[in-house]
């Protein structure tokens, strides 16, 4: 199996701690060498997943935990967000996860607004599993700065 570092953070399923996850995300992504733009994308995508997870806990009137797992690979960052308290095994979770299109209960998530849409837009790959609570697995690849001259770091949204 491909080598990776794994960082797991567990917070109470309350919106109070989304900012804490965001700061951790920023630190990890910076450590890996993602660009500022990419770090901002990661912050939004992961916050969206954590927001969904805290909302689920709130709807079930649970005082649960949200677990966020970061898999740091040489070429990518894999982030898992689970709305149940238990720890998870990266390879086990990946074994049961599938493409989100094929999973029926996702309709419920979509009604929540633009959260999942933004996750999809900002990450390179998104998979969702609903077997044990909701687990979102997101991947963002590291793009090496091959050429300095024509890199597109300058925003084109103007």
């Amino acid at each position, binding site marked *: 199996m491909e080598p990776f570092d794994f960082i797991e953070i567990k917070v109470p399923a309350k*919106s*109070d701690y*989304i*900012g*804490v996850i*965001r*700061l951790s995300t920023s630190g990890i992504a910076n450590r890996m060498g993602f660009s500022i733009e990419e770090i*901002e994308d990661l*912050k*939004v995508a992961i*916050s*969206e997943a954590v*927001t969904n997870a*805290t*909302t689920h806990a709130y709807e079930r009137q649970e005082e649960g935990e949200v677990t966020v797992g970061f898999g740091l690979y040489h070429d990518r960052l894999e982030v898992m967000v689970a709305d149940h308290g238990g720890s998870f095994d990266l390879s086990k979770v990946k074994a049961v996860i599938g493409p989100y299109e094929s999973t029926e209960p996702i309709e419920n998530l979509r009604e929540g*607004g*633009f*959260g999942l*849409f*933004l996750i999809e*837009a*900002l990450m390179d790959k998104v998979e969702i599993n609903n077997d044990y609570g909701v687990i979102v697995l997101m991947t963002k690849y590291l793009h090496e700065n091959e050429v300095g001259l024509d890199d597109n770091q300058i*925003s084109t*949204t*103007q």
Partner: protein
Amino acid sequence: MNLTLDVVNKGSTSIVSLEGEVDAYTAPELKETLLPLMRKNGLEVEVNLEKVSYMDSTGLGIFISALKASKEYNSKLRLVKLNDRVYRLFEITGLNKVINIDSTVRGGF
């Protein structure tokens, strides 16, 4: 990781200036400030996002509610001085086509 709101009333215009982060934690405060303003008939509400360092779909949701309220109560909503990051979210979701955003004065990051 907090949000500060400042409301200034000038005749038929209310300027709401935001500073900080808009996420699921801070969003309720924004909603409680913004929606009552939107329910005032004829009021023009300008939301200044120049000092918003972070926003996600929770913020988008509030602006959608505000837009709906503006149609219902005949008030007006305008977002100004969005930085590139924040504007990008409106662009990705297509909300920049339905919400009045002043893109001529775009704030820096």
